[in-house]
């Protein structure tokens, strides 16, 4: 059962002469992790805003969890979607960590006793319990993003959309967020849609959709996408380390297999090939 269905979506910003989203159709199955990648300016974020009805498409349909997105159903649909945005500072609404986690619940008119329990639970899930009463000014970017995640968990959505949520973090912060999301996805049976150009984030996905100039140009699982090698850079993605190593070996006339290896399987292959010499 497809939880997100998008059919022939078109969107054009006022006063521009090309479409930002050009006849886009795709489906996301429940429980999948899908990454949408593309270079800067390929209007990835526009897609995210269209999905939660912050902007309305010129034509086309968005069906989320069996419900069509219209101006009437927009609030019900937002109940099902949690979103983490790019800038850690600009999505921290509450005055303290606990307030921020509670913000979404306050909007859904959850009573206070339930809020207390859920705030604690959500903060525990993202390992931020010790920071409950801290103010945003003394948290790191990665910690703020984890609080944003806790705010999403607290309202228990079915879908998590990450709109370049890792792009302003340091490598360690990125790693922490990714691991947290992996764990949460399994615990809460989330469908994850991450819009990104971070290679590690894309590598975690079940499927990768490549968007370019408002069109979907490619769709495959990570190994299929990463075996493109050089073309990845044009797509706006970095090349995974294992691919870089393969290229470097190929330059030095070592015969490497064409299929994509992640780091683990590349190590296995290297060891066996060394033993074969």
């Amino acid at each position, binding site marked *: 059962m497809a939880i997100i269905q998008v059919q022939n979506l078109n969107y054009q910003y006022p006063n521009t002469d090309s479409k930002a989203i050009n006849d886009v159709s795709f489906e996301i199955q429940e429980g999948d992790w899908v990454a949408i990648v593309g270079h800067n300016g390929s209007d990835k974020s526009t897609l995210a*805003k269209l999905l*939660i009805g*912050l902007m309305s498409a010129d034509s086309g349909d968005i069906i989320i969890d069996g419900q069509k997105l219209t101006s009437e159903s927009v*609030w019900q649909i*937002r*109940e099902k*979607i949690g*979103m983490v*945005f790019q*800038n850690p*500072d*600009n*999505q*921290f*609404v*509450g*005055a*303290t960590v*606990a*307030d921020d986690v*509670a*913000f*979404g*619940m*306050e*909007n*859904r*008119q*959850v*009573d*206070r006793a339930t*809020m207390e329990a859920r*705030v604690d639970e959500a903060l525990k899930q993202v390992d931020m319990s010790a920071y409950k009463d801290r*103010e*945003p*000014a003394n948290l790191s970017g990665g910690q703020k993003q984890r609080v944003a995640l806790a*705010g999403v968990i607290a*309202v228990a959505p079915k879908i998590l959309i990450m709109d370049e949520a890792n792009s302003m973090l340091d490598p360690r912060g990125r790693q922490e967020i990714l691991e947290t999301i992996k764990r949460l996805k399994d615990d809460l049976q989330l469908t994850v849609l991450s819009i990104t150009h971070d290679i590690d984030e894309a590598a975690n996905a079940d499927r990768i959709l490549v968007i370019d100039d408002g069109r979907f140009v490619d769709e495959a699982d990570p190994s299929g996408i990463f075996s493109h090698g050089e073309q990845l850079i044009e797509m706006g993605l970095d090349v995974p380390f294992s691919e870089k190593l393969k290229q470097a070996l190929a330059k030095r006339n070592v015969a490497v297999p064409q299929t994509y290896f992640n780091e683990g399987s590349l190590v296995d292959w290297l060891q066996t090939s060394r033993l074969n010499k």
Partner: protein
Amino acid sequence: MDKFMFGRFIPGNSWVHRMDPRAKLVLCFLYIAVVFFANDFWTYLVMTLLLLVSVFATKIPLGVFIRGLMPLFWLMIFTVLIQVFFGVGGHVYWHWGWLVLSQNGINSAGLILMRFVLIILISTILTFATQPLEIADGIESLLSPLRKLHFPVATLALMLSLALRFVPTLMDEAEKIMNAQRSRGVDFGEGGLRQRIKTIVPILIPLFVNAFNRAIDISTAMEARGYQDGENRTKYRQLKWQRIDTISFAVYAVCLGGVIALRYLS
């Protein structure tokens, strides 16, 4: 910025810190109102004692409060001088042309100075011992009767708490922009008045533009998290009226009532 103590919050766990912000706000207003009733030695003595008890109850050393008065030092000197030399009536001690040093002048200068110090200190107690956020909550709660007049209390409260939440963030940003502009050769605090005003522009404009972008991002994030309007929401933060608030109220009521009685009975 470090020297500027006025309006800062000093964390602690004293009697005053634990009080309900609504109680603190109301008592602070009442105190300021009653300061204007005090007019002789005895009434001022009661007011001063009440203030000292309140200061003691914050567990913050008196020296810190005095330092909070320092930025206003020149303003106090100025008002006192004006009062002293322009007060007329009573016994004249000394005069030179139109400058007159008279008994009334000295009396009213003393009164004004006392009022000044008392009002500033009582507001300092409020800000030192109450988190800005709590003050915002208190104001919202005190304004809630205005809902009947269709005044958007919840919206105002949200604006207030968002504003407070972004003060440190914008401070950091201003600092960053200043340093970035310095590294490009902008000289702050140099030259005459016109020159100085000109150097403010390269800080203000980026700060404004960033604030706009920030506002767009925040409103997007808020909508995505289900914020529709200020009215139909539950509240995570709740204020609790405790026994210490009632006791404080009683103490203030006795003292302030005493001051007003002294004024009209004597």
